[in-house]
């Protein structure tokens, strides 16, 4: 089926643009970058059409990558229904965002570099999705991390951008560490890293082992998908260009953790403790991130915390055993969050780089297209029926109720918060009086076209693509009874959130400030993001840095290692200065010594009986 | 006579015959060269010693032998004496593996028209010719004369440089024939057994092997230090090059070596590219009559000129020549000579053709400048030879 072509198209695009893009005109860079992603998308469609209905996984082995003892790892790619969903999301959304980037990046420097990195990201993301074993998955996993780092730090002349890139990379290291250990344990337990082998034998493995594997993989997923306690990098990652935020930090890469845990479902269903942990982390992340989102003024920061919160939802879905609901939410979230980011990008573009919502307002009439598509995304994320977010969020919440009612209530409350902060952002941006001093202008058609497509998907995607039905045979069935009253409650929470936002930011704008003043302490805490970064600095970062400086550098490196090396050198010099008396500088005397040694050698060999 | 005795006797006879013929050929090649160049330059050439100067080589030999053998006092004597010996013996040594014809019957004993058949014959010739450089180099150095030294350096550098394209050009037909034995080489060009082929089977016409042939010829001119590559003895720069100080028989040795080398490379060209002693087309289509026709025609022309003499002497000499030629033509018709004389005729005819090309070029082309010479081989001939060999190897491997 030539699965390898899917990731190789973007790789070729990367190679061409990365090597020669500097000399190409923009049109050529565009054609190569977008053409390669579109080709990849079309190839995905063709492959899936050929493989339909895809009841069983199709695996292709290209070559044996590592062969050592009992360890045999192939470069294998597999496609099944889960992969199919992910492939469509990644290549489809990826294509749209690439097209959008033509307009957004038109006036930026390093144009070819941006598209080369984007293509490289597509390559690694598709490798991650297609991988049939954990090692290849890890390659994609690390690769997308690398591209994330490169693209966050795309404006490398700005210090906060490079710092944010470093932060993302380093925080992800912690998660990757957990992932690696998990993979080692998988190999130890199953004797193979193949996902198929793992799935086949997971039922017979000891629960303790599975729990350990599950928790370690969860650590990896937390890093990649920005969950508590490793979520801190994602809000900072907004330093990158907005299409990057949309593609990598909303639609695709950050969902890799969800995808990975869903892909490892055989482990989790036999390790209920690990699953419970996922659900708790998801719930907590969803709630806390949503509360932080309430008080942010940077439009991209709001959506960043929203992303963290929504990822929490997906974890809840996976954690309560509703894997298909999690993937469902992953897909719808990709639609409306990509749209939110791209829309906010359009706003920022319209205001020539302004990101602070306090300097916006009243843009509804000035950039109407952007307003309407943003509205589509907002109603979708707020869970207004029958739009995309409603279906997937509802599936998760129903499953959560079946698992543990308090999670449902936490989720529902979070849904209300979500609706509130999203509409707060919408209202602050588009309603009221214009508070800025730029002259807003509508974005070009090349940016608007993808937005319109995404808007349509946000509105109708939930109904059109019934992922839980498609995946029902793939994951173990976890029947959650349809419960109209629960659906009504969660929907109502969303509507209440919207209404409160309207009240505070459109109807009576003064109410927001007075409310904030009334709960001053709480607001201050939330506004400063619970001081998590500061706490991490104090508890983790500074001790490590200081410890490295004092003990590792000054003590061990400079004292012990350098001392040993220098001491060895000094002793060698001492011995050499004695031995150099022998060195007459006369080649023939050297040769004589060589001959002498040869004679000794022959004598020794003769005595040992070696000359036969 | 048992087999081994017969082997020794026959080998001895062959050596004697080949040596005698070769020596005569060397002497007369010189005469032919002078004649041909003279006619190219529209002058008669040697004329007075014997009819049409036919005895001129004999006179030259007598002159060279009887001349005083000068030994300059400042030379390095042993090496000075050894150098011409090395040159001429190496030149003659390579003749020993050249096959002149197929297997023949001599009084009931089967033998090859060849002194010895090595299955690395081609390598042997390369090896011997590479040793031949020493004759030149040592002669130049030991003469203790700056002209000689410069000539020696030049010609040995030239010979080493041109040996590369030469070897590469040789390798291409070897790849096609898949043998290193000179005899096998001819056999593979002769068509399938029982179905004698035409000249189209020769390596020369095998694909683009004419390129190899041309490279071979150019390199061969340089290897033998012939015009247009005779820088070693560029009279107007270096007096007489490496043999400036040599006289008498030692000088003659170098001369012999040069002509023997010419014959060797001509034989190589014929064996590698022109099908050796194989007739250009099968005997059943009348190739056996070609020598008869050639000799008979020449004899008749000579007779005609004898009847209408331009000078007094022609009245006797030309009819004699004509009759001899007619007799030779008759010999070619005799059935018992066909098996060995015809191949020999074709071999000699082809070698003669190449030798004529040597002389022709000498009569027409000017000399290269030294830097042009080196640039030509390293930057032009060598890359082409490499490419040619690579492509040939590829094609041979694929087909």
């Amino acid at each position: 089926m030539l699965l390898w072509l899917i990731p190789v198209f973007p790789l070729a695009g990367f190679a061409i643009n990365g090597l020669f893009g500097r000399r190409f005109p923009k049109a050529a860079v565009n054609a190569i970058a977008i053409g390669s992603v579109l080709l990849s998308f079309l190839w995905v469609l063709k492959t899936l059409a050929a493989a339909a209905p895809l009841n069983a996984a199709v695996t292709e082995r290209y070559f044996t990558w590592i062969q050592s003892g009992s360890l045999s790892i192939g470069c294998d790619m597999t496609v099944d229904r889960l992969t199919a969903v992910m492939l469509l999301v990644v290549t489809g959304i990826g294509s749209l965002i690439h097209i959008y980037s033509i307009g957004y990046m038109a006036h930026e420097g390093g144009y070819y570099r941006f598209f080369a990195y984007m293509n490289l990201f597509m390559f690694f993301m598709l490798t991650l999705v297609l991988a049939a074993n954990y090692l290849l998955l890890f390659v994609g996993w690390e690769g997308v991390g690398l591209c994330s780092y490169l693209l966050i730090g795309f404006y490398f002349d700005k210090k906060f951008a490079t710092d944010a890139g470093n932060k993302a990379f380093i925080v992800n290291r912690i998660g990757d560490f957990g992932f690696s250990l998990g993979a080692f344990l998988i190999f130890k337990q199953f004797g193979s890293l193949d996902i198929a082998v793992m799935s086949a034998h997971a039922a017979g493995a000891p629960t303790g082992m599975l729990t350990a594997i599950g928790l370690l993989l969860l650590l990896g997923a937390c890093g990649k998908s920005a969950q508590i306690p490793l979520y801190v990098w994602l809000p900072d990652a907004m330093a990158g260009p907005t299409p990057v935020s949309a593609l990598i930090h909303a639609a695709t890469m950050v969902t890799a953790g969800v995808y990975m845990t869903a892909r490892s479902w055989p482990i989790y269903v036999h390790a209920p403790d690990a699953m419970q942990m996922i659900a708790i982390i998801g719930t907590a992340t969803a709630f806390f991130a949503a509360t932080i989102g309430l008080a942010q003024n940077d439009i991209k920061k709001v959506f960043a915390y929203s992303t963290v919160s929504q990822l929490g939802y997906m974890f809840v879905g996976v954690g309560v055993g509703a894997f298909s609901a999690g993937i469902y939410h992953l897909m719808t979230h990709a639609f409306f969050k990509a749209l939110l980011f791209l829309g906010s990008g359009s706003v920022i573009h319209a205001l020539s780089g302004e990101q602070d919502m306090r300097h916006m307002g009243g843009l509804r009439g000035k950039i109407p297209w952007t307003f309407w598509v943003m509205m589509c995304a907002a109603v979708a994320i707020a869970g207004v029926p029958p739009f995309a977010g409603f279906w997937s969020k509802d599936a998760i919440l129903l499953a959560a109720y079946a698992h543990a009612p308090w999670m449902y209530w936490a989720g529902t409350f979070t849904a209300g918060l979500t609706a509130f902060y999203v509409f707060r952002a919408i209202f602050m941006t588009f309603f009221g009086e214009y508070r800025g001093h730029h002259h807003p202008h509508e974005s070009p058609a090349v940016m608007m076209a993808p937005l319109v497509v995404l808007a349509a998907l946000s509105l109708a995607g939930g109904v059109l693509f019934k992922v839980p039905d498609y995946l029902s045979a793939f994951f173990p069935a976890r029947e959650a009874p349809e419960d109209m009253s629960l659906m009504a409650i969660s929907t109502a929470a969303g509507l209440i959130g919207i209404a409160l936002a309207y009240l505070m930011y459109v109807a009576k704008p003064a109410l927001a400030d007075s409310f904030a003043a009334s709960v001053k302490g709480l607001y201050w805490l939330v506004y400063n993001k619970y001081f998590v970064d500061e706490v991490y600095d104090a508890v983790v970062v500074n001790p490590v840095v200081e410890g490295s400086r004092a003990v590792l550098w000054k003590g061990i490196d400079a004292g012990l290692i350098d001392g040993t090396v220098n001491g060895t050198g000094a002793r060698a010099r001492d011995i050499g200065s004695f031995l150099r008396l022998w060195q007459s500088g006369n080649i023939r005397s050297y040769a004589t010594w060589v001959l002498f040694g040869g004679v000794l050698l022959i004598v020794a060999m003769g005595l040992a009986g070696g000359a036969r | 006579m048992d087999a081994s005795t017969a082997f020794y006797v026959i080998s001895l006879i062959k050596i004697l015959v080949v040596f005698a013929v070769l020596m005569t050929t060397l002497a007369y090649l010189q005469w032919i060269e002078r004649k041909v160049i003279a006619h190219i330059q529209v002058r008669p050439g040697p004329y007075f010693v014997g009819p049409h100067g036919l005895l001129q080589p004999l006179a030259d030999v007598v002159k060279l032998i009887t001349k005083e053998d000068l030994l300059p006092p400042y030379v390095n004597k042993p090496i000075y004496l050894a150098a011409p010996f090395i040159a001429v013996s190496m030149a003659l040594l390579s003749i020993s593996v050249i096959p002149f014809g197929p297997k023949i019957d001599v009084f009931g004993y089967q033998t090859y028209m060849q002194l010895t058949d090595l299955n690395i014959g081609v390598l042997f010739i390369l090896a011997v010719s590479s040793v031949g450089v020493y004759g030149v180099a040592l002669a130049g150095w030991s003469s203790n004369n700056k002209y000689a030294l410069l000539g020696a350096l030049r010609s040995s550098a030239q010979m080493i440089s041109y040996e590369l394209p030469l070897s590469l050009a040789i390798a291409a037909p070897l790849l096609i024939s898949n043998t290193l034995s000179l005899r096998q080489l001819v056999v593979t060009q002769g068509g399938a057994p029982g179905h004698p082929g035409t000249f189209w089977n020769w390596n020369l016409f095998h694909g683009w092997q004419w390129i190899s042939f041309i490279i071979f010829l150019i390199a061969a001119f340089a290897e033998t230090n012939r015009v247009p590559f005779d820088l070693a003895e560029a009279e107007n720069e270096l007096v007489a090059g490496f043999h400036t100080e040599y006289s008498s028989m030692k000088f003659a040795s170098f001369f012999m070596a040069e002509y023997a080398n010419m014959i060797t490379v001509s034989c190589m060209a014929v064996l590698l590219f022109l099908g050796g002693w194989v007739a250009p087309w099968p005997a059943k289509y009348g190739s056996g009559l070609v020598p008869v026709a050639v000799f008979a025609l020449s004899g008749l022309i000579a007779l005609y000129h004898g009847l209408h003499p331009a000078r007094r002497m022609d009245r006797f000499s030309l009819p004699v020549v004509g009759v001899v030629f007619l007799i030779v033509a008759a010999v070619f018709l005799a059935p018992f000579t066909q098996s060995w004389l015809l191949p020999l005729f074709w071999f000699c005819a082809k070698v003669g053709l190449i030798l004529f090309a040597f002389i022709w070029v000498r009569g027409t082309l000017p000399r290269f400048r030294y830097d042009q010479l080196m640039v030509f081989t390293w930057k032009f001939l060598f890359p082409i030879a490499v490419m040619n060999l690579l492509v040939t190897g590829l094609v041979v491997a694929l087909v």
Partner: protein
Amino acid sequence: MQQVPQSWFLVLSALLFALGVAGFLFRRNIVTVFMSIELMLNAVNLSFITFAYQHKDVGGQLSAFFVMVVAAAEAAVGLAIILTVFKNRETLNIDDISSMKN
């Protein structure tokens, strides 16, 4: 037909090698010293080919072949070095070339 004992070849090889060593040790002209090295290499080649005969294995001959190739490369570089040394120091005496000392 009488046969040559194999050890004769090897002893010949040893003697040639020893002569090469002697040349290396006792000659002062750098070119002659270099030629002594070539002599040693040739001696070793003879052993290789004798061993190839003994084991009826062409590998020994290939070793000799590689030695030859390496010797050719070595000669090219070595002689270039000798030329450079002579250009800079106007001497071929190996005892005079001792700038590595001190």
